[in-house]
């Protein structure tokens, strides 16, 4: 990481602390915003958050590694999360899975080389009556078939 990148990240985290307060309670919201902006939470970011919240860096690491929606390594700009629960499975999840893998040329838990897409599985999305379902960033898509799933990818910038 370049020095100016580090400086701007530190500044950004300082602003977040100002907004959410210098309190352990603020940890998760702060991490969620960093994840959203940078698509992961770097070791440096974890250390900075720890320093500014006055907690040990390993505390931040332990939280980042616990939650499925927080990442320690760079992810794609867009994250596709396909529901793998049995209801979606029975509704035809496998076909969607194949189509997504084919279209992006990667496996699940991988990121495309241009860092645009990451494919992930997720536990139940709560769309069991309208499966198969997937979450693309903050948007939910249901009743997918392979064609619409690929169209959604193409329509997402």
């Amino acid at each position, binding site marked *: 990481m370049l020095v100016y990148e580090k400086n701007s990240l530190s500044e950004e985290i300082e602003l977040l602390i100002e907004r959410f307060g210098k309190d352990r*309670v603020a940890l998760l919201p702060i991490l969620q915003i960093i994840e959203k902006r940078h698509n992961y939470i770097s070791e440096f970011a974890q250390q900075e958050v720890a320093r500014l919240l006055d907690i040990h860096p390993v505390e931040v690491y332990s939280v980042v590694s616990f939650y499925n929606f927080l990442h320690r390594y760079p992810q794609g700009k867009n994250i596709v999360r396909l529901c793998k629960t049995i209801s979606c499975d*029975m509704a035809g999840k496998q076909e969607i899975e194949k189509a997504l893998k084919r279209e992006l040329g990667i496996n699940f838990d991988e990121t495309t080389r241009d860092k645009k897409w990451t494919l992930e599985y997720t*536990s139940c999305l709560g769309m*069991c009556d309208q499966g198969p379902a997937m979450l693309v960033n903050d948007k939910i*898509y*249901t009743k997918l078939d392979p064609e619409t799933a690929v169209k959604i990818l193409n329509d997402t910038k």
Partner: protein
Amino acid sequence: MENNFKKTKREGVVIFSPYESGSSIKKALEIGRENILFEVRESKMKGRGGAGFPTATKWMLVAASRADKKYMICNADEGEPGTFKDRVLLTEYPALVFDGMVVGGYTIGSEIGILYLRGEYIFMLEELEDFLQSMRKQNLLGKNILGKEGFNFDIAIRLGSGAYVCGEETALIESLEGHRGEPRNRPPYPVNTGYMGYPTVVNNVETLASIPQIITKGADWFKAHGTDKSTGSKLFSVSGDCEKPGVYELPWGTSLNELVEIVGATNTKAIQVGGASGICIPKSQFDRKLSYEDASTGGSIMIFNQSRKMLKVLKNFMEFFVEESCGQCTPCRIGNIKLLEGVVKIEKGDYTFSYINSLKDLSKTMQVASKCGLGQSSPNPFISILENFKDEIFSSNGNGANHA
């Protein structure tokens, strides 16, 4: 396709019955705390998340405790596979949920309400925030609510980050405090030592959504539905092999046979009641009734027809638990991996019955030795599917295993 679940007009006897936004808050402020507690106790309302703890008892414990601060938390971390009733309530009936929180907050003497929304439901965040804003404008939230001097209450929404175990109330509190979502030892219970160490009520979305109806229409009206021990109605999230999947409000005591009829399921082999951590009931037992005293559920109903292989279903559930176990206590962390290993071995035909029996023993150990509900209930599908479908799974010409 996207967010297309807002159009249906729902029918139901209790929760989906007509309700005017804010009316229960008005009535609650008129009748006072003691009468609210009395009504809720009379209604015999039990927690709808699955554990079935009497709501009135929980509220009374917090109402009676002396503390500078108290918290009212709504648990919207609906992660159980096959459950989506909270999604429907929050997107279609937010007034019920939030009014329930305000009434609860008034009753227990809290000024701060928190809605813990699971990260997967982030798509509804904006609308919920807008709804809270409109409540503030109508003085249903904020300072001196509806002119009641000294009653201040506001609700904040906090997002989860994709962890099933955070639906356990103490794990949820840990998560809110900025820690890993690992359940705490209980006691002390959240009603004594909850969020930030203060007395805290954690209620399920559906529990809170029932409260406004009980307050406005009375405990007797509520009790008229359901059975003696399970009063009122329940939202069932029905998915799987049926013609009309979706959320149904049915009185407690409805039998599985009736349910199958209502949702248009044919050629049914089995129903998983209570999600991945629930039990799998074969067709021969479809006369069992959905209620706290018989087939208890937080609302998840998954229907499997004759073409489904139960071993595959079981494998899916066990993979889920291996993924979602928080890893804090050994019975759950290791136990679920061992059970999944067992399922894979059965799949390959590479097992002995004494091995299966030792796994069943392990299941019993997990049920008593695990720290929270996740590990205590994760062996349920393993035990019930192997027991109820042993012919299919273990017979050499059955279609459960790939061997033969």
